[in-house]
């Protein structure tokens, strides 16, 4: 059983904690020992959120050590950049390309990193990087809110877990009325990776 360490990065309100819960649950249902750690500060929206998720035969620490993360799931490019210090050589990053602009940028104090800065930073940290426009895909299939499920679908395609477990865990956490939409979002995400758009 291969140990796997994950990082889920995003902005408060994007569903980052939900995604890391799902990832931990899938690990447990797939037979791993699992631990995860989130940093939650003030219950105020818009802050950085980093979640560590670990699968293994036996896991001690819920916190991943620097240079050990196998796969990062990033819901936002700037937050992906903040996570690169934890990545191991040969790792994989899946990143939504849609920025969430912080107030330090919108107020004109500092500027948001350019697309090329984002791409070169992520490329230097991982062997394979998938830049996915999950937000546009979500709008295309009917609701911008399912972008995080598209990202999870993409992420799931990188792991050897059973698709049935993934779909079970994901769909158990969405409202009944939107199960079909979320299933379609999850499968859209999977196809984005299986289509082979990694760089």
């Amino acid at each position, binding site marked *: 059983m291969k140990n796997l360490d994950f990082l889920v990065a995003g*902005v408060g309100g994007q569903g980052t904690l939900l995604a890391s*819960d799902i990832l*931990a*649950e899938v690990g*447990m249902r797939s037979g791993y*020992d*699992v*631990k*995860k*750690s*989130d*940093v*939650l*500060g*003030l*219950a*105020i*929206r*818009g*802050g*950085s959120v980093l979640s560590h998720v670990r699968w293994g035969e036996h*896991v*001690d*620490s*819920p*916190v991943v*050590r*620097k*240079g050990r993360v196998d796969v990062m799931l990033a819901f936002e490019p*700037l*937050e992906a*950049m*903040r996570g*690169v*210090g934890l*990545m191991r*050589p040969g790792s994989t990053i899946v990143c939504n390309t849609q920025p969430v*602009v*912080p*107030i*330090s*940028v*919108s*107020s*004109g*104090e*500092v*500027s*948001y*990193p350019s697309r090329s*800065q984002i791409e070169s*930073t992520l490329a*230097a*940290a991982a062997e394979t990087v998938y830049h996915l426009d999950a937000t546009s895909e979500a709008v295309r299939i009917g609701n911008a809110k399912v972008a995080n499920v598209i990202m999870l679908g993409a992420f799931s395609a990188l792991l050897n877990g059973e698709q049935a477990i993934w779909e079970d865990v994901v769909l158990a956490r969405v409202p009944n009325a939107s199960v079909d939409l979320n299933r379609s979002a999850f499968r859209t995400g999977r196809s984005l990776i299986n289509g082979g758009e990694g760089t």
Partner: protein
Amino acid sequence: MTRALLSGNEAIARGAYEAGVQVATGYPGTPSSEILETIAARYGDCIYAEWSTNEKIAMDVAAGAAYSGRRTLVTTKQVGMNVLSDALLYTVYTGVEAGLVVVTADDPGMFSSQNEQDNRWYARLAKIPLLEPADSQEAKDFVVEAIGLSERFDTPVLIRTTMRTSHSKSIVVEGPRQDVPDQVGPFPRRQEKYVCTAMWAKKRHPVVEQRLVDLAKHAEEIPLNRVEWRDRSIGIITSGITYAYAREVFPEASFLKLGMTFPLPRKTIRAFADGVDRVVVIEELDPFLEEQIRAMGIAAAGKEIFPSCDELLPDTLAELAVGAGLLPFKAGGSHSRPEIPAGLPPRTPVLCAGCPHRSSYYWLSQMKMPVAGDIGCYNLGCLPPFSAQHTMGCMGASIGVLHGMSIAGMPERAVATIGDSTFFHSGMPALVNMVHNRSRGVVLIMDNGTTAMTGHQDHPGTAWSLHEREAPHVEIEEVVRALGVEKVRRVDAFDVHQVKEGLDDCLAFDGPSVLITKGLCAQLSKPKSAAYEVNVAACIACGTCFKLGCPAIVKSDAVVESTKRAKVVIDPAQCVGCDMCRQVCPVGAIRAPGAGSEEADE
């Protein structure tokens, strides 16, 4: 038996369920709040759970329930323990009729607290048993254990978690609930035990001391303290989440893993120390274990390697261990790691779009007077663009500090800012103190109808409670008047000019005055309208609206030609139509959707 992935807080709630707990109380505070919320949501049919108005009251309520024969759990964050402790200390002398467990969630790293205090000292101060779980399974099991200890030794028991144990998730094997009686009573009339008057309390003190001796003997036998023999060149003594980190960083070392960290199992510790070449104590924050172990004459290393500040995460532990020669260099991780680019834009917390506190800080920052602040979201008023808060210490401190400024003879007019939940928590006695002692100054109570920062819990001013959909609602204005404040104004927090007029009116009063700004927390209210719009042609880029510090107000690409200053645009994804920016715009360039902009059109 089912396996579930639970956070430490959810696991403590589960433990309360399995231990037959029937009453749970507390006051919200990160990282402890989810314990009571989980109890209410999942086990509310068999456990009564309430948010009490403050931690001391939560503890008094718990004492009354435990005296009545109900197994009881109390929760607090680490600084709340300071408030709770007065009540804890008498229950140590009285003991209980049924199990009484206090859970303190400490915050090494200060993710959401004003200090980094180590609450393990409270166990030593109070002379009660202390348990420290390392993961969610232990968090659950230790509650069951603690209830057992409490009843067997007739004492309250302290469980101490840290943010990482409270908020990390791991797998828990769930068990059944213990049987507990439905009915209680009659109430025990044991005055010599439950009345802490000196003549009886004096006889209880030796009982407390003997109890500690008995507990220390018991500590030698319980599986909560265990030795893991491996390589004997280093023996690590540790507890709580630090065990999980250290086990990973020192896979080869021998460990004494302490689940019960007060009173200590001295024989077990001595035997472990004798069995290894070098004893190292690893603990976050204070040298709580280390000092006691050294006092036994054991030459243990500890704080000279692993400092008292901040978390001791695995990377930190590894680096420090390599530096101290406890680990070979390669184990510390020497390969190059990707660099995080310097100067990435920070994502600091801000008052939400639509926050009712914004109008108060908009004026306070412009009026430049000293502001004594308090605990809550509104503490963000200390940050730019407001920078309008000059003290902040603990729950309810603002009002006493304001009075202190007044009696010190400070010539400036000053304001205290406090939220509704904090006012009920500990603001009320401070306000009546201002009345009684003829203070001057404005107490600005920002009533957003909830305990917002910790996740929107109830308080006496809300019309619901943790266990009831409808609860009696206490109006702050009536409380303030009943406390004897003569000058009281209540204004709509979303009416920016009304807030200013109220402030001016209260400041002019020679005595203590109260201004209540009422407006529901943005997270609990629906958007008031679709996003507002800016008439770009009319915007003069004066920057007035930026002084509101609203995340929805954004610099646009358009500039005013003469000054090259950026005009403003409103982010439709964030704006909830609170209207404050329209009210402050001096040229009427901001308008509600679909509305004409009168001044600009003239």
